[in-house]
């Protein structure tokens, strides 16, 4: 009995893991099939002759290159700029003194329970008045700072010893100098965590880009894929190639920086 436990546990895990990864592997396999090959019964698991025709068609006919570029630019823009705002604010909430600091922080934490969709309609009208609807700015500007980001950075920054900052102040360093040469290096790990989180969320975001970007030239990959999939209901191989191009960048980032991602996940969710 006892000897059977280890194979049973590992066997069940192996089966669940295969079932979990199967849709993603199948997506890759079907994306390499020639058009129409996947519309058969029983469904083929592997392309009889692998071809990149679907990818070629996506780039030449469906203009996917443009959407890919939009997604890359928007993700990079949101990630880099929000990093600056959130790290600065998170550090200040943890280590600097200013009037109302704790009260403001509590208010921010309280606002975390508000789902972002509540703000969407007035935000759309506001951005419309600012002329930001149908521009990259409509995506980037509202995402420049986030409560979650500030919270995560603050929790980490609390561990910076006050003595270290005090010593620099006694040496006559300005607050900005201290931030740049002491705080930022110490906060590097959490900044990477936040960057991974933000970039994955920005890349995968769907509802807000769908609302703000009406011009096809500005579509991000998820918005373009959703619109393509409504047109090409039957072209399974083509749609799978589109899904591969949309998911693989995030999967690769995740695989490369998994350590940082998992830490952020537990930081944000598990109470200390």
């Amino acid at each position, binding site marked *: 009995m006892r000897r059977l*436990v280890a194979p049973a*546990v590992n066997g069940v*895990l*192996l089966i*669940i893991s295969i079932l*979990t990864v*199967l*849709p*993603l592997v*199948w997506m890759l396999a*079907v994306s390499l099939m020639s058009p129409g090959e*996947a519309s058969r*019964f029983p*469904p083929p698991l592997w392309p009889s002759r692998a071809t990149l025709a679907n990818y070629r068609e996506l780039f030449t006919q469906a203009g996917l290159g443009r959407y890919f570029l939009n997604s890359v630019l928007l993700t990079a823009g949101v990630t880099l700029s929000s990093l600056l705002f959130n790290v*600065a604010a998170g*550090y*200040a*909430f943890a280590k*600097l*003194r200013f*009037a109302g600091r704790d009260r*403001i922080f509590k208010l921010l934490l309280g*606002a975390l*329970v*508000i*789902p972002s*969709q*509540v*703000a969407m*309609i*007035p935000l759309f*009208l*506001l951005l419309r008045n600012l002329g930001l609807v149908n521009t990259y700015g409509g995506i980037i500007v*509202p995402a420049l*700072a986030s*409560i979650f980001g500030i919270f995560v950075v603050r929790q980490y920054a609390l561990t910076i010893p006050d003595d270290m900052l005090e010593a620099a102040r006694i040496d006559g360093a*300005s*607050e*900005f100098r201290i*931030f740049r040469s002491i705080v930022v290096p110490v906060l590097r790990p959490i900044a990477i965590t936040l960057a991974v989180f933000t970039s994955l969320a920005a890349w*995968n975001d*769907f*509802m807000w880009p769908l609302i703000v970007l009406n011009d096809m030239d500005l579509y991000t990959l*998820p918005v373009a*894929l*959703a619109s393509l*999939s409504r047109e090409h209901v039957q072209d*399974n191989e083509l749609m*799978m190639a589109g899904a591969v191009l*949309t*998911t693989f960048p*995030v*999967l690769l980032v*995740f695989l490369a920086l998994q350590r940082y991602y*998992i830490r952020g*996940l*537990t930081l944000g*969710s*598990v*109470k200390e």
Partner: protein
Amino acid sequence: MKGAGAAWCFVAPALVIIGLFFIVPVVAALALSLTDFDIYALADRGNLRLVGLRNYVQLLQTPLFWKALGNTLYFVVVGVPLSIGVSFGTALLLHSRVTRFQAAFRTALFAPVVTTLVAVAVIWRYLLHPHYGLLNYGLSRLGLPPVDWLGDPSWAMPAIILLAVWKNFGYNMVIFLVGLQSIPEPLYEAARIDGASAWQQFLHITLPTLVPIVTMVNILTIAGYFQLFAEPYVMTQGGPLQSTVSVLYFMYEEGFKWWNLGSASAVAFLLFVLIFGVTAVQLRVSRWQGVA
């Protein structure tokens, strides 16, 4: 206060952004929900009128709103326990002393979490295809009749739940796993010396330690599941027979298809109140249990 000026330089930009682009819109959503803001008001603010609670009254008389609410509750009530159950089960398996290649299994099980929802919805639409889908092929191998997953009103929501659980369970799994790993090993050793069985250890050490985490995970998962949108948008467009219209899908159509922005704001606000209410009840219950 010394250095307060510099401190404000650090926080002010972020606070201005959050205030202007989140807090103000949230308050404005409440105000907007009390107006008849529609496509005419979008063209000319002169057409805007305050209508009090009329949007809310009208919503509560709209059958499709109730349908959307019912569909969303169905998704939450079935999807959340299923998702958390799978998360918890897989976390226990991963944490087991006999598990090998824990990191590899964890990565595989977590992979769907980081994928793009729209893309996996496209994949699943194909997996669930009545003729060529892998799922029905699997059923046929088991000798079961095929299911028209996304074409049958009674199967479309279960199909979406299946996708959601597959996509999300890894997230809570990792949180549970971290919780399990934080339980000090000596606790179990002491229990074993006292002759406690594996089941007793689970019941009296593992579960009680994880209660706060389970509460947390519950609240966050329920709030997340209430925000169902992209799955029906891509897979079913709310159909068949409006069986997968969710509250947010309803809000999206009301606001950005018909441009009834006042009424859509009322939908958004009702959703918020609902999520807030459910969260508050759970916190109350968990606190009450903590005392008892």
